[in-house]
C-alpha cells in the first residue's frame, strides 16, 4: 500500500511540475499595462527572419513605452505595453502549446504570431477557438484566411498569391522576354507564387519553357541550373526562402553559367544577409521584389517615414534594419492604430477598428488594406533590379512603369 502511495506521489509531483509552469497569472482587471504576447524562433529554419521581425516589434514597444504608452481610445488615456515572448525554435509542435500559454496563462491582451506561414498556421485555429484577434505580421499563405474567421489580420505583407502580379505583368510587357524558366521551392509561400505566375502567364506571348518545383531544403542547385540552361530561357524566376536563394545564387556564380535575367525573392527582403553570402558581384543585375528599406513609400500618414525609422533604429540598436524589422515594426503600428481606433477593448471590437482604417492607413510599409478574410491586399510588390554602383550595388525599380526609377539592364552583361 505504501508503495502505491509512493508511486502515485511520484506521478503527482511530476504532474505538478508540468502544471505549475510559467509565471503565475496576475490580476488583469485594472489594465495599468496592456500585454502583448508573441513567439519568435531563436534557432532553426526560420530563425533569421523571425528574430529580425521580433526586433522590429520590440523596437516599436520600446518606442511607445519611452513616450509614456500608446493611446487607447477605449480607456481614454495612454497605456504602457508589456511584451511577453517565447522561443518556439522554428517548430510548430513547440509553438502550439506556447501560443496557448500566451492566451490562457499569461492572458495577453494582444496576440501576435511568429514569422511566416508555417509558424503562423498553428496559431490561427488556437486564436479562433479562444476568440483572440491574431495580428499576423508575415504569415501570407492563402490557407490561413477564410471569410468565416474574423480573428486574424495580416499586417505587413500582401497574401503570397498576389505577390507576383507585377512580376507577371512585367514579363508579359517586356518585349525581349519570350521564354521563361520557373524554379520554385515547394512550400506554401513560394508554391502559391509559382501557381499565380503560371496562371497569369498562361495564354500570353510568354512561354513557360521550364517549370520545376524542388524541396524547400534543397541546398545544391548545380544540376538544376544546368537543366534550366538546357531550356534556353530569356528569364529565370527562382522562388524560394532565403536559404534557397542563397544556394541558387551561389550555385549560379560557381557554375559559370550566365542567364539574361534572374529573379529571386530574398535579395529584396534580406539584402545584407544575401550580400554577405553571395557578394555584390553575385547580386548585380539580379531582379527582385524591392521592399523597404530598398524601396521608400513617400506617402506616410501614420508613424515615422522610412528614413526617420532607419536612422533611429541604427542609433538605438547599433545595426541596420532589414525588411523584416520594418515588417515587425509595422505590425506594431497597426496594433497602435487599432488601439487608438477601437472604442472597446474586446477582440471583435479590435477587428472592427481594423476595418475602419483599412485602406486609409499609409505607413513606411505602404498602404494597409485587408479584405473580408483579414488578408492583406494593400500595396503590391513592384519589380526592381540591382545595378553595380561603385563597390556595391544599388536598387532600381523597373516596374510598374509609373514607379520605375530606371530601365532594366537586359540582357545582364
Amino acid at each position: 500500500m505504501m508503495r502505491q502511495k509512493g508511486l502515485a506521489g511520484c506521478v503527482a509531483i511530476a504532474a505538478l511540475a508540468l502544471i505549475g509552469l510559467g509565471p503565475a497569472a496576475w490580476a488583469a482587471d485594472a489594465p495599468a499595462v496592456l500585454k502583448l504576447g508573441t513567439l519568435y524562433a531563436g534557432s532553426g529554419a526560420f530563425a533569421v527572419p523571425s528574430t529580425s521581425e521580433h526586433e522590429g516589434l520590440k523596437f516599436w514597444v520600446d518606442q511607445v513605452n519611452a513616450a509614456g504608452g500608446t493611446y487607447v481610445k477605449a480607456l481614454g488615456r495612454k497605456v504602457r505595453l508589456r511584451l511577453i515572448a517565447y522561443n518556439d525554435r522554428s517548430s510548430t509542435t513547440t509553438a502550439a502549446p506556447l501560443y496557448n500559454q500566451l492566451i490562457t496563462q499569461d492572458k495577453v491582451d494582444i496576440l501576435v504570431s511568429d514569422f511566416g506561414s508555417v509558424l503562423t498556421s498553428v496559431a490561427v485555429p488556437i486564436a479562433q477557438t479562444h476568440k483572440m484577434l491574431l495580428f499576423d505580421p508575415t504569415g501570407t499563405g492563402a490557407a490561413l484566411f477564410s471569410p468565416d474567421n474574423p480573428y486574424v489580420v495580416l499586417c505587413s505583407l500582401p497574401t503570397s498569391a498576389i505577390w507576383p502580379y507585377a512580376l507577371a505583368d512585367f514579363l508579359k510587357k517586356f518585349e525581349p522576354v519570350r521564354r521563361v524558366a520557373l524554379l520554385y521551392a515547394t512550400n506554401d509561400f513560394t508554391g502559391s507564387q509559382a501557381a499565380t505566375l503560371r496562371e497569369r502567364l498562361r495564354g500570353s506571348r510568354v512561354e513557360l519553357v521550364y517549370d520545376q518545383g524542388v524541396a524547400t531544403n534543397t541546398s545544391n542547385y548545380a544540376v538544376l541550373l544546368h537543366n534550366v540552361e538546357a531550356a534556353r530561357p530569356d528569364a529565370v524566376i527562382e522562388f524560394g526562402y532565403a536559404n534557397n536563394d542563397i544556394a541558387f545564387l551561389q550555385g549560379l556564380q560557381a557554375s559559370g553559367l550566365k542567364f539574361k535575367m534572374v529573379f529571386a525573392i530574398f535579395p529584396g527582403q534580406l539584402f545584407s544577409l544575401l550580400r554577405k553570402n553571395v557578394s555584390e558581384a553575385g547580386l548585380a543585375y539580379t531582379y527582385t521584389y524591392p521592399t523597404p528599406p530598398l524601396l521608400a513609400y513617400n506617402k506616410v500618414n501614420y508613424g515615422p517615414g522610412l528614413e526617420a525609422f532607419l536612422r533611429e533604429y541604427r542609433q538605438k540598436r547599433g545595426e541596420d534594419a532589414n525588411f523584416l524589422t520594418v515588417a515587425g515594426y509595422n505590425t506594431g503600428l497597426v496594433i497602435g492604430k487599432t488601439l487608438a481606433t477601437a472604442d472597446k477593448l474586446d477582440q471583435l471590437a479590435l477587428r472592427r477598428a481594423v476595418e475602419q482604417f483599412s485602406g486609409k492607413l499609409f505607413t513606411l510599409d505602404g498602404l494597409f488594406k485587408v479584405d473580408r478574410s483579414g488578408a492583406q491586399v494593400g500595396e503590391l510588390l513592384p519589380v526592381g533590379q540591382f545595378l553595380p554602383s561603385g563597390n556595391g550595388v544599388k536598387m532600381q525599380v523597373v516596374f510598374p512603369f509609373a514607379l520605375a526609377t530606371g530601365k532594366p539592364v537586359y540582357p545582364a552583361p
Partner: protein
Amino acid sequence: MLKAVLTGVATVGLFALAPVFYANQTLLFSAMMYLVLAQGINVLYGFTGYLPFGYVGFFGAGAYAGALSVLRLGLSPVLALVVGGVVAVLVGVVLVPLLRLSGAYFAIANLAAAQALYYVVSNPDLQALTNGPYGINLAVAYNATASYAAMVALLGLALATVVYLRHSRLGLALRAIREDRISAELAGINVVRERTIAWLLSALLAGLCGAAFAWYISVFYPETVFSLNVSIFAIVFALFGGAATLAGPIVGTLVLYGLYSAIGISQPEYFQLIFGLVIVGLVLFLPDGLASLSERAGFEVP
C-alpha cells in the same frame, strides 16, 4: 497487476480532469501525445529490444490518413481516428521485413522508412491527393474538446496495452525472446509472430495518436507530423523513465516534458543546451532509467 491498473487509472484521470484546473490545454494535450508515443515505443523497445528510430513515420501516416479521410471522404473525425490507426498498421505490415534486421541496422532502416514516407507524402506530384508540401487545413472538423477527449481515451488504450503485455503470455514470450531468442524458440515460442504482433500494436498506437493530433491541431504541414524530433522525444522520454515498465515512460514523459516546457518558457536561450546535457548525463549515470533507481531502493515498479 492491481498496482499497474491503479497507476493507469490515476494517470488517465489526471489528464481527464486537468483542464478544469489548468487552462493551457494544448500543453496537456502535447504531454498526453508524447505519453502515448512513449508507451508505443515501450511496447516495441521494452518488450522486443527493437528501437524504432523512425517511429514518427506511423504518427505522420496516421495524421495524414485521418485528416484526408475527413477532407476527401467526408468521414466523421472519430471514424477518421480509426482510419489513421488502420493505415499506420498497414504501413507496419509493409515494413515487417525490417524486423529481420537487428540493433542499429533496424533503427537506421526504420528511420529511412519514415523519411521516405515523408518525401512521398510531401511530394508536389501528389498534390491532388495529399496536398503535397502545402499542408492540411482541417478547420471543418475542428473541435478542441472532443479531440482532447479522444486523446484521453487513447492514453487509456496505450496504458492498457502495456499492462496487458506485462501480465500476459504474449508479454512473457516477448521478454523471453528478448533475453535469449534461441532458448525461446526451443521452448516453442513463435518468434516471428510474437514480434510482429508487438510491432503492429506499436504502429497502431502511433497511428491513432497521429490522427488525434491532426484533429486537435487542425492546421499542419508534412514537416510537423514527420519531424524526427517526435521519435526522438518519445524514445528519450521512455528510456529516461525506464523501458518495459508501465510507470517508467509515464514518469519519464511528465518529468522531462515538464522540464522541457518549463526551461523552454523561462530560459529559452539555454534550454536546448540544458536539455542536451541532461540527456547525456542520463545515459551515463542512469542508463536504465528512473525505474532502476526505484528498484534499487527496493520498490517494484508497475
